[in-house]
């Protein structure tokens, strides 16, 4: 089995934003969030066909994401404790 690839190779990766100003990089992020939300919501709307149900499904999706992110942060902070260090190799 080939090793897991985390990011695309440079020739297939999306264009770098390193040349943009910090403010324009922030605009790229804002556009991703707003467009991403719109796409996900439209997916739920297509699936359920009803605005209120789609909104509820979208909110639940956001809550699941938030819970997963919170548990990752707790894990990250717990890893700071000296007694829990391990090299993982």
């Amino acid at each position: 089995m080939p090793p897991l690839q985390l990011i695309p190779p440079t020739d297939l990766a999306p264009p770098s934003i390193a040349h943009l100003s910090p403010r324009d990089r922030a605009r790229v992020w804002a556009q991703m969030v707003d467009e991403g939300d719109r796409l996900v919501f439209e997916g739920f709307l297509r699936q359920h066909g009803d605005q209120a149900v789609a909104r509820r499904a979208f909110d639940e999706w956001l809550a699941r994401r938030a819970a997963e992110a919170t548990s990752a942060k707790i894990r990250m902070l717990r890893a700071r404790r000296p007694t829990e260090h391990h090299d993982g190799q």
Partner: protein
Amino acid sequence: MASEGVLATLRAGWNALSGVAAPKAVIGGLALTAWNHARYTRDADVLLVSGDFQKEAVDRAVPWPALTDAGDLRVVQPDDLVVIKLLAGRLIDRADAAMLLRENREAIDFVRLHREVVGQGISAEYRQVWSDAFPSEPMPRLE
């Protein structure tokens, strides 16, 4: 717009923490934006110091005036963000770490990064993100 809500949350949280006597800096997916990697995230994460590494990371944080009008907003350096991402440990965090390495090679303090990687016991995770960021280059020896 959701992005405005995220920024408003960050601004409000940052300002609310101004009375706390601990230094702080932006981390998480939003901080990637400062370091040449933008991706979808609605989380506004702020690190408050609670340990030696975190204190150093926050002390080394740089001003980030471009994101919001929260006057003294700061963001951790890319090498510290790599360590934080590797400690968080999800697949997306490791992908973020790989992109941070690739997109910020000149800005990263590799001596500090490698010291933290060894000290935090995340050498195996680091080896994986290095090989994805720089597939044609062997990973430097970690002392």
